């Protein structure tokens, strides 16, 4: 049970409210080489059972991350997955290289799927060849567990998943946000300053479950499922669709203890249904198919 990138800051924001040590891990907000100011406001907009965001990789940059954020994160004694993002292939490689000998982190999550920055990000995540090349390049420079985070804004997510695995990805996480937008009809203009934003929350769950299902049929690496998880039942949908782990994103905003409640609910489900370990249910809905 993880908390999804960008929805739990660098941990410290929630430390007062949540027993972080019970989490299976924290995916950090995207870290870039240089500090980034992010997009102008308004950056968020609410939609039916979901929200749009266009934060734009606001983060203090790698150096401050290593010097200030990481030491704090380590105190919570949970696995740390660093979400890394760049505008160019070289930036990703440099980020990965510089994080390679940082023992405190458990894995890298390659964010090749963020829809809210003009360059980089999304363009890698929508083309299989670019994905394979990028993952391969990063693989060369890191011994960390390598997770690739997939974009849902593609015609064929399985192809991208296969490319990431071919490039050497140890695991996949999906989905990032769907590109969406809203119009402020009184102002007669886009609601977000960035025009488009990433749609997250329960609204996108059916798309996320479907992609988890498809990718589970296409590749053999572990999948971290996410997209609209708010309850244990939601998490079970992802697990039965083929996820080995799940992450809570937007629901953290709604209820800071959402991830802990999901854990409690999963334990309860396992007890009630005599399931030894939750991962015994991974892909359960596939075998149940007639």
């Amino acid at each position, binding site marked *: 049970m993880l908390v999804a990138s*960008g*929805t*739990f*800051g660098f941990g410290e*924001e*929630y430390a*007062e*409210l949540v027993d972080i040590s019970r989490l299976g891990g924290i995916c950090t*907000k995207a870290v870039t080489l240089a500090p980034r*100011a*992010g997009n*102008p*406001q*308004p*950056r*968020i*907009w*609410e939609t*039916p*059972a*979901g*929200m749009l*965001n266009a*934060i734009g990789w*606001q983060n203090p940059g790698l150096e401050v991350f290593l010097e200030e954020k990481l030491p704090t994160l380590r105190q919570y004694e949970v696995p740390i997955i660093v979400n890394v993002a760049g505008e160019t292939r070289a930036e990703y490689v440099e980020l990965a290289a510089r994080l390679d000998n940082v023992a405190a982190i458990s894995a890298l999550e390659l964010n090749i799927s963020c829809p809210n920055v003009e360059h980089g990000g999304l363009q890698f995540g929508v083309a299989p060849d670019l994905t394979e090349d990028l993952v391969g390049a990063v693989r060369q420079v890191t011994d960390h567990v390598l997770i690739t985070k997939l974009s849902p804004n593609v015609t064929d997510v399985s192809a991208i998943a296969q490319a990431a695995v071919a490039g050497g990805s140890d695991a996949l996480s999906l989905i990032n946000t769907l590109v969406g937008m809203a119009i*402020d009809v*009184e*102002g007669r203009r886009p609601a977000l*300053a960035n025009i488009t934003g990433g749609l997250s*929350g*329960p609204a996108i769950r059916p798309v996320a479950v479907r992609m988890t299902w498809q990718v589970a049929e296409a590749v053999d690496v572990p999948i971290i499922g996410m997209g609209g998880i*708010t309850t244990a039942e939601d998490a079970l949908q992802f697990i039965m669709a083929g996820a080995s782990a799940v992450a809570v994103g*937007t629901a*953290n*905003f*709604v*209820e*800071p*203890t959402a991830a802990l409640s999901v854990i409690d609910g999963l334990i309860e489900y396992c007890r009630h249904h005599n399931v030894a370990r939750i991962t015994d249910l991974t892909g359960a809905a596939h075998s149940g198919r007639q």
Partner: protein
Amino acid sequence: MLTTQAELTRREQVAPEHYLLTFVCPPIAEQAQPGQFVHLRVTKGLEPLLRRPFSVMNVNLSQGSFQLLIQAVGQGTQILAQAQAGAVFDLLGPVGQPFPLPDGAEQVLLVAGGVGVAPLIFVAERLKEQPAPCYVQGLFGAQTEDYLCCWLEFSTRCDEFATATEDGSAGEKGLVTDLLDKQLDRGGVDRVYACGPVAMLAEVARQCQEQQVPCWVSVEQRMACGVGACLGCVIPTRCEGSQHYQRVCREGPVFAAAQIDWEAMSPELDRC
């Protein structure tokens, strides 16, 4: 800051679309400082999904209660406007940086626009309760007399008090910033605290800058997490010349007016 629950014990309509809600929740009542807000979940369901931020208008320590003044503008506030006494809400709080109250007895000017009066009522109360009470001047502007919500709560906590309405139905006809202009001209003001629409705040900031009076404003921004994690609620600020974004829920909602990049706030200014 903590996540807790609060019971709505009283709901009262104080103006068209404006409601005064009293909640019992001792830890919030004890900890809240003027300018801080609570981040409230209006439903157990998903509609609306996100929490809603509201400034604490005042607290009653003996009853362990606090009050919110709510303007019903959309789905979330309408749910609150119709909530029944006895309803229990999840809330996070107290959130954010309060108004930095002076140590000694200063002459403090409070400028309230519409529902923005809420945190300033709390400010006024605390300024008068200080060991060395301040001299508090209150200025309150609204569209019409009807919308001068809780003006009695405000005025009774002020040593001087004046109102402005756009249609002249009460006090001066015009904007509250016209009152401010005259007041600053008269001099003697040590600091200004303001809360209201962003266009008003920008004008307050401009005047205070001109007259070199220190000024703090409480600003609004759409929020998701309310705890600093999502980076959704930022406003543009200036720090040593360079622009960067600060979070309304963490570094705010109260900012030194001089710190805000009012020009880059234009999207919000347009909206007014």
